[in-house]
């Protein structure tokens, strides 16, 4: 039997799953519900505050983790769900799925790093 390279993706999946379970609910609650519905006043979520947060290295790290890592959870699961639905995708589709997570992570890091410098 051939050694699988799954440990790499499983590691990212595990990290992403943990972040999605612990951080994503409150993130959705704030950015998707409390702020848009006006329960949290707009000035608490203003351009200036968010910019300052994203330009602090710790804030940037939090944003990167919350945006990027869950993508690895999701693309991993969606790829395996294809198999569950009887679609036995090849390496090209696999590269495409994990490529989305990779591209999202790089795009997020680039935006944050451009803000930091």
């Amino acid at each position, binding site marked *: 039997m051939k*050694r699988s390279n799954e440990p790499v993706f*499983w590691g990212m999946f595990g990290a992403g799953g943990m972040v999605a379970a612990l951080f994503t609910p409150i993130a959705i609650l704030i950015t998707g519900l409390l702020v848009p519905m006006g329960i949290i006043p707009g000035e608490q979520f203003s351009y200036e505050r968010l910019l300052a947060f994203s330009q602090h290295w710790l804030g940037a790290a939090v944003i990167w983790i919350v945006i990027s890592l869950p993508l690895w959870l999701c693309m991993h699961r969606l790829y395996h769900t294809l198999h*569950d639905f009887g679609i036995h995708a090849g390496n090209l589709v696999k590269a495409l799925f994990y490529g989305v997570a990779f591209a999202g992570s790089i795009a997020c890091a680039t935006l944050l790093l451009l803000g930091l410098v």
Partner: protein
Amino acid sequence: MTDSIKIDILRYRPESDNEPVWQSYDVPFTNEMSLLEALAYIKDELDPTLSYRWSCRMAICGSCGMMVNGVPKLGCKTFLRDYKNGMKVEALANFPIERDLVVDMSDFIEKLEAIKPYIINDNPRALEDGCHTQSPKQMAQYKQFSMCINCGLCYAACPQYGLDKSFTGPAALALLHRYNQDSRDAGKAERMKIVNAEEGAWGCTFVGYCSKVCPKDVDPAAAIQLGKVDSAKDYVIAMFKPGE
């Protein structure tokens, strides 16, 4: 006062049937009656052509696995009183039906053999060295995974095995983990070749149903996840030892 219960059984007689067909039986109901006893009643009193496997009648031989209302169960550990609205009984899922409730388990047996389910040690302890000692912790690492009775319910519960028969599957991987964790064993390196493969631990997506249906409370899902952790460590070590 004789209550009765309706039992639908998926019949398959290879000499006459091209595909399985449902057949209905009315069985007298008593509170203590197990499904296995009901099948015996059907065979003795109603229809001697019905085929099913059984032996111990007490959940240790692992012969009487079958689907009851779509859930893998041991016939001897399933009671009519819990199915007052009737039951639909079918051969264990994910295995080919040989006849009626009898399945062909040879693929499962081959997988059990392939994981080398025995203690491997090139330097066995000599008699004069005395007996092996294990701490409670060393024993607890493998004990629950050694309780498997090879009934195959976990294979019937596992969609990954159903979708791809090359997957080593829950019971075999749990037994593999049981020997890998045994402090008397030195065969881990050999068995890791199976764990590390797509057909090994990585064929599992942690559905978790295998552990839920196990009649002996073995937790194959946990064994496989711990196998993944082992395999991930093995993967990192292998990166630093190219050519192996």
